[in-house]
C-alpha cells in the first residue's frame, strides 16, 4: 500500500515509523531540516513542500496512493490537503483535527471536506482521560469488544502487596490475563516465574470487574469504589470535552476556567458541571472549593508547565489521582517520574487511532503501550486466520514470538483463553503484541 503522510510532527513521524516496515510511505513536511532527517532515519521518501498545494501532492504521488493522512498541527491545512488529494486521485483520506466542530460537521455528511475519516485529537484525549478516572494506580485503560474487555496498565507502588510475588502468584483472577511486565521502559511478556518489583508496570487484560478487583489488590490504599469529586482544570477544548463525557458517565465535575467569557460559555452548555472562574494556581480559592479532597484532578490547561504545576499541587494536597495533559511527547516520562499519576499526550492518542484505521480490515481497535513498544489489538477472527479452529497452544508457537492472547469474546460472552481453548471464526480476540512484529501478526490473523 502506498501511503502519503502530510505533516511530519510527532503524530506524522510516529505513524510513518509504524507503517514504514510494511508499506511504501511518502512524508511531506514544510520544514527542510526535518525532511532531511527523516530521509536518513526512516526508510521513507520525505519531500519538502506545502501539503495543501497540488504541486507538492503530485510530487508525492498522491494520484497513485491508497491512503493519505493529513496530520499537520493546523486543522484547516489538513482539511484543504484532503480536499486537494480528492482532485488528484482516489486515495482514502484521513484528517486529524483538533476542533470538535469540524468533526460534527463531517459527521453530518461523511464526504465533507473530501475527508473519508476524521480523527479529532481533543475528543480522543478527553475520552482517554475519562476512561482512566476511577481506576487509581492505572496508567492507561482501554476498552475492547464493545466494553466486554478492558486492558489496563498499572504501576506497582512500594506498598503494593503484589511486590515480591511472582507473576503466577499474582495471577489468581479467573478470566484475567497477565500480558506483560514493563521494566525500565522494556516490555517483557509475562512469564510465571518472574518476580514483580515496585515501580514496575503490569498490563492486564480481562473483563472490567476483574480488572477493578485487580486494581484493589494491586494498590488497596489508593483504590476506592466510587469516584465522586472530580476537578477539571482548564476549560479549553479538551477540558470541556472531558467535563461533558464525565457528565454523561454520571459524575458531575467541577471545571476551573480563568477566562470569564470562556467560563460562561462552558457553563451555558454544560448544565451539570459546576464552572468556577478563578486562576487555578490560586491556593486560597482552591481551598474554598475543597480541592484537596478531590478523588481526581485533570489538568487540561494550555501549557505543559501549568499542567505540571497544577498536578503537583493537587498531589501535595492529597488528591488520589492526578491526570495531566502533556503536549510535548518527550515530557510524558518526566511528568510521570515526578509524581503525576498519568500523563496523556493528545498526539500519541491521535497516532494510535490513525494507525488503527490503516489496519482497518483486520484490526477493530488498537492501543500503544509505552510509546509503541508494544500494542494491544482487537481482531475479528476470519476463516483464513492462523488462529481459527485450532487450540491456542498450537497456533501461537507458529506465529513470531511476542504474542499473548489476552481475551476472547464470543457473541456477548467471554471465553477464558487457556492452552486448549479453540478460537472460532467470528470471535473477537484481544492480543498483546510486540510492536516489532505487529504488522506481521495482523497480516497472519
Amino acid at each position, binding site marked *: 500500500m502506498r501511503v502519503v503522510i502530510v505533516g511530519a510532527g510527532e503524530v506524522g513521524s510516529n505513524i510513518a515509523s509504524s507503517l514504514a516496515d510494511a508499506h*511504501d510511505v511518502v512524508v511531506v513536511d514544510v520544514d527542510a531540516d526535518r525532511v532531511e532527517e527523516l530521509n536518513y532515519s526512516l526508510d521513507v521518501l520525505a519531500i519538502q513542500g506545502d501539503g495543501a498545494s497540488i504541486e507538492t501532492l503530485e510530487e508525492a504521488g498522491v494520484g497513485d496512493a491508497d491512503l493519505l493522512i493529513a496530520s499537520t498541527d493546523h486543522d484547516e491545512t489538513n482539511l484543504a490537503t484532503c480536499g486537494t488529494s480528492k482532485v488528484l486521485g482516489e486515495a482514502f483520506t484521513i484528517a486529524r483535527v483538533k476542533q470538535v466542530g469540524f468533526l460534527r460537521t463531517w459527521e453530518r455528511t461523511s464526504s465533507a471536506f473530501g475527508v473519508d475519516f476524521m480523527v479529532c485529537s481533543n475528543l480522543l484525549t478527553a475520552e482517554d482521560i475519562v476512561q482512566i478516572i476511577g481506576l487509581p494506580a492505572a496508567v492507561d485503560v482501554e476498552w475492547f469488544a464493545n466494553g466486554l474487555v478492558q486492558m489496563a496498565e498499572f504501576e506497582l507502588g512500594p506498598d503494593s502487596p503484589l511486590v515480591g510475588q511472582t507473576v503466577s502468584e499474582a495471577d489468581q483472577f479467573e478470566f484475567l490475563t497477565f500480558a506483560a511486565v514493563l521494566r525500565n521502559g522494556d516490555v517483557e511478556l509475562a512469564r510465571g516465574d518472574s518476580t514483580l518489583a515496585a515501580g514496575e508496570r503490569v498490563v492486564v487484560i480481562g473483563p472490567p470487574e476483574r480488572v477493578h478487583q485487580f486494581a484493589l489488590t494491586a494498590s488497596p490504599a489508593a483504590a476506592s469504589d466510587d469516584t465522586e469529586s472530580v476537578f477539571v482544570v482548564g476549560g479549553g477544548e479538551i477540558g470541556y470535552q472531558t467535563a461533558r463525557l464525565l457528565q454523561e458517565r454520571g459524575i458531575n465535575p467541577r471545571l476551573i476556567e480563568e477566562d470569564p467569557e470562556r467560563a460562561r460559555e462552558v457553563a451555558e452548555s454544560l448544565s451539570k458541571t459546576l464552572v468556577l472562574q478563578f486562576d487555578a494556581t490560586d491556593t486560597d480559592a482552591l481551598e474554598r472549593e475543597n480541592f484537596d479532597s478531590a478523588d481526581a484532578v485533570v489538568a487540561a490547561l494550555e501549557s505543559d508547565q501549568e499542567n505540571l504545576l497544577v498536578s503537583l499541587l493537587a498531589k501535595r494536597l492529597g488528591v488520589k489521582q492526578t491526570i495531566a495533559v502533556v503536549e510535548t511527547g518527550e515530557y510524558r516520562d518526566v511528568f510521570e517520574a515526578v509524581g503525576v499519576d498519568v500523563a496523556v499526550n493528545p498526539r500519541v492518542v491521535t497516532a494510535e487511532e490513525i494507525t488503527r484505521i490503516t489496519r482497518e480490515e483486520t484490526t477493530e481497535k488498537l492501543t500503544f503501550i509505552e510509546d509503541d513498544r508494544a500494542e494491544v489489538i482487537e481482531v475479528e477472527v476470519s476463516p483464513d486466520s492462523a488462529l481459527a479452529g485450532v487450540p491456542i497452544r498450537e497456533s501461537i508457537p507458529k506465529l513470531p514470538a511476542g504474542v499473548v492472547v489476552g481475551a476472547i469474546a464470543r457473541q456477548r460472552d467471554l471465553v477464558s483463553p487457556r492452552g486448549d481453548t479453540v478460537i472460532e471464526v467470528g470471535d473477537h480476540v484481544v492480543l498483546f503484541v510486540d510492536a516489532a512484529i505487529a504488522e506481521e501478526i495482523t497480516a497472519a490473523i
Partner: protein
Amino acid sequence: MKLRVDYKASLRLVGTVLKYLAVPLCFPLVVALYYGESVIPFVVTMAVTVLVGMGLERLAEDPDIGAREGFLMVAATWFAVTLVGAIPFLIEAHGVPFVMAALHPESTLGNPANALFETMSGFTTTGATVLGDISFESHSRSIMMWRQLTQWLGGMGIVVLAVAILPELSVGGAQLMDAEAPGPGIEKLTPRIAETARALWGAYLGLTVLEIVLLYGLHVTGNAPNMDVYNAIAHGLTTMPTGGFSPEARSIEAFSAAAQWVIVPFMVAAGTNFALFWHVLTGDPKRLVRDTEFKSYLGIIGVISAILAGVLFLGDGLASAAPAAGTFDQTYLETVQTAIVGNVEPSLRQSIFQVVSIVTTTGYASMDFNAWSAPTQYGLLFAMFIGGSAGSTGGAIKIVRWYVILKSLRRELFTTAHPEAIRPVRLAGRAVDERAIRGIYAFTLLYLVMFFVSTGLLHLDAARIGFELSVLESMSAVAATLGNVGPGFGVVGPMGSYLDFSNSSKLWMVLLMWMGRLEILPVFVLFTPEYWRR
C-alpha cells in the same frame, strides 16, 4: 579507551558484502572454463572471500548503523574488496603452493603493491594500470576479464548494490548510499531506498547490455573487425562505470572509427545523473532537458570539444616533433598528422572522444594524446578536474559543485555592490541550502589541497629513486588517480603505465583513488581522532 564507533557492526556488514563477492567471481570462472584456462585463481579467491566474510559476520548480531558506522562500513568495504580482488592477480603470478605452479611468473602484478594498485584502480573505476604488458601472452583471458569486471562492480557502487539486494540494509541504507554515491547528497526516487538502489542498478545494467549488443552488432556487420564477443563484453563492462580498462594495449585506438563513435554516447550517459534516466523511463522525459547540471555538462563537453577539434583540424593541436624517448615515435606522429589535419571527421572524432573520456573520467583513448601539443594537453588536464554529474559513475569534482561555486562567487561579487541583498543560490529554480554550499567549498578545497600536496610528494619520491618525472607528468598522475580518470600525460599517458613509480608512490596513489571514489570525506574522517573518540 572505549570507542564511540561501533566498528563491529560496520565490519559485520563488510563481511556480508565480502560473502556475496563470490557471486560476481563466477563470471571470470566461467570465462576460464570457456577458454580452457585454470579456474584455481578464482576458486581460491571465492573460498577466501566467503570464509573471511562469514568470519566477520559473527562479530555482531544485529548491527545498528549510525552515521559514523556508515562511513566506516563504506570505506572499509572498498578497501576489503580491493584486498580480495587482488588475490587472482597474485595467484596468477605466484601460483598456489602444492596445488598449482605460477601461470605467468613474469606478470608485474606479482608485486603486492602493483596488484593492490591495479585492483583499487579497477574498483574505483580509475583505469590507471601497472601492467607491464597488456596482452593475452602475459595474462590469461579470464584474469583480464576479472580486471574489467572489477570496474563494472565499482561503477554504480558496491554498497549501492548491497542496499539493492540485502534487506537488512534498508534502514541505514540512505546513510550508506550517501557516503558512497558521487555528488553532494543522494536523491531518493522511491519510498524504499532498496527500490531506488535497484532502479539505479537496473538503468546501469540495461545500458551496459545495450552497449555490448551494439558493439558486437558492429562486429557482425563487418564495421569493427577487432570487436569480437570478448572485446564487446570487456569494453561494455568498463564504459558505463567510466572505468577505462581495456584488454587492448592501444585502448580504443585498436578499434574502427565506427566502434569509437558508438562508445562516445555511452560515456556521455555514464557521466549523467542516473536518477535522470529513471525519470525518463517512468514517464517524465522533460526532467532530462530541464536539468541544469545535464545542460551544463553537455555544454562543457561541446565547447571544449569544438575548440580542440578546431586546433586539431588546423594542425596546431599536435606536437611538432616526437621526443627522443616517449610513448610515441616520429612515424606515429606523421601517421596521425596525415589522418587528422585538414580532415573534418577524424579531428572531430579524436577531439570529442578524448574530451568526453576525460570529462566523464572514463580514461579511454582513441589515440595517444601524448602526441598532442602542450597547450591542448593543459586543456585536457583542466578537464580532469571537472568530472561527471552528481549521481553518475564519474569521478573528480562534479559539474554540480562547480556550478554552485561559480554561482555563489557571483553572489559574493553582487553583495559587494549591494551589501543588504539576500540572494539565495539557485539550482534549477530551487534555493540551495547554505550549509550545502559550505560543504561544497570544503570538499573542493580539500580536493585541491590533496592534489597539490600529492603532486609534491610524488615528485619528491620519484627524485628519491631517480625516476625522471616532469611537473606535468606528476600533476597529471595525481589528477588522474584522485579524479579516477586513469591515464595522464607522458609516462602515465594512455598507452603508458604507472609501473615505474616506487612502491611508496603507488600505495599513496592507492589511497588517492580510494579517497577520490568515495569523495574524500568518508575516508579522510577515519583519520581524525574526533571520529573515534567518545
